[in-house]
């Protein structure tokens, strides 16, 4: 068990036993990473903040159900990812176009000029084009650098499924970034 995991376990134990300081310590220790995950999943700061808020409220409510079979962080990130899925589902019902994190002034170039240059959307925009389950796998494995087994635990899928989602997610990401060389044509899998 890592030092962080051991600390978390002790904080959860203290919190469930009635030490409210422990919850604040848990939140302080994890809020940045939970925000990063939600921001990358949702690509909208307000939506991400809402998701982080909902995540910690859920954790506060359910702390007594945490069994310690997995690391606290695994459980926390699972709640966070599920909260983000909920948010994405709501976004689909009420579609909006989120502003990019750092938007540049509008380009006055005409359509022909636009077509003549390589379009390189930012990584956040490219991630947003991935199906949610692929995006979650790529975010957790490649951006948060979590072990595949832990990603599987968070997403509730076997490691093999995580590997497949990460692989295909990267492929879709590369396509979304528009950077593939002209001759490279990726074969398509029908399965998801």
């Amino acid at each position: 068990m890592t030092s962080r995991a051991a600390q978390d376990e002790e904080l959860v134990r203290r919190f469930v036993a009635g030490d409210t300081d422990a919850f604040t310590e848990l939140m302080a220790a994890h809020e940045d990473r939970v925000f990063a995950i939600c921001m990358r999943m949702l690509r909208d700061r307000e939506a991400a903040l809402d998701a982080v808020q909902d995540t910690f409220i859920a954790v506060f409510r359910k702390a007594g159900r945490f069994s310690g079979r997995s690391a606290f962080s695994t459980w926390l990130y699972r709640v966070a990812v599920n909260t983000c899925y909920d948010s994405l589902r709501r976004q689909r019902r009420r579609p909006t176009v989120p502003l990019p994190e750092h938007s540049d002034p509008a380009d006055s170039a005409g359509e022909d000029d636009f077509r003549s240059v390589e379009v390189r959307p930012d990584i956040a925009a490219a991630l947003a084009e991935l199906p949610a389950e692929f995006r979650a796998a790529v975010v957790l494995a490649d951006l948060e650098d979590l072990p595949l087994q832990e990603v599987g635990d968070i997403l509730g899928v076997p490691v093999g499924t995580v590997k497949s989602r990460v692989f295909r997610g990267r492929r879709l990401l590369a396509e979304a970034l528009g950077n593939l060389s002209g001759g490279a044509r990726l074969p398509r899998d029908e399965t998801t």
Partner: protein
Amino acid sequence: MTAFDEELIAALAEGRLPPDEAAAAEARIAADPAASAELEAQRIALAALAAATPPMLDDLERRRLRASVAAQLDVVLPAAAPSRRRFTFNWAAIATAAAVLVGVVLVAPLLSLLNTSGGDDTLSQAQAPTTQEAGESDLLFSASEPAAADEGEAESAATTVVADALSAAEAPTAEDRTLITAFAAQPLPELGELTEEALVALSAARFQDDGLAETEETDKVDVEALPCGERLAEDFASTGFDIATDPVTLAGTGTRDGERVLAFVLGGPDAAQAVVLRSPVTCDLVATIPAR
């Protein structure tokens, strides 16, 4: 089915192979245009991901976040009265009941703790009940909560199931108590004898329509907060639904061959729905009407 080795390509792109194996893999992949394209895509994506800067909370957002967590708890916890709409499960009541199990008295000091406008000094002196005490008080609270007149029958049915669950469980664990308590806090519709015909009718009823989903309490589908929530993942898989995106509704309680059951409906109004019956005591699967 791909014609190349995804694991090998991923390992090569991630730089996980020893130099000699990497060279051999490069040569083999170079001979296959499809594999080469996959390798290029993996490398492009990994390079872009590696260059991405992590989103960070700024100080204002951090303060807002902590304050809003405190404020939300302040709003949610006293709102114990359930307000069912149609057959939609009352997430707020479930969450509230679960929160109470952890310990309602924990909230006040936490709110102060998270409140950035001051008042921190009282926090370290706060005394909170143990989980066991909180759980017991919650069970008592739930049992004594008066039922609305038009929900009396449903509440009675729910209470019966809860009583069954409590009597069947010789030594309920804390998790069992949470589920049972949460269940008791929610007056569920009584669906009667769930024959095949009734299940077909239930699967044809429309659940989680968009109009209801506009509200936070009905839109917040937290599968794990449901009784038998951990087992529902199997039901999503067996009926072809996606636990990440498709809704689930606890439609009510009923009987199946004389056994009390919980009836879950998977899927929303835009698609076919499946009905799953599970025992409220063991969470074992009793029956399924698959989506069509």
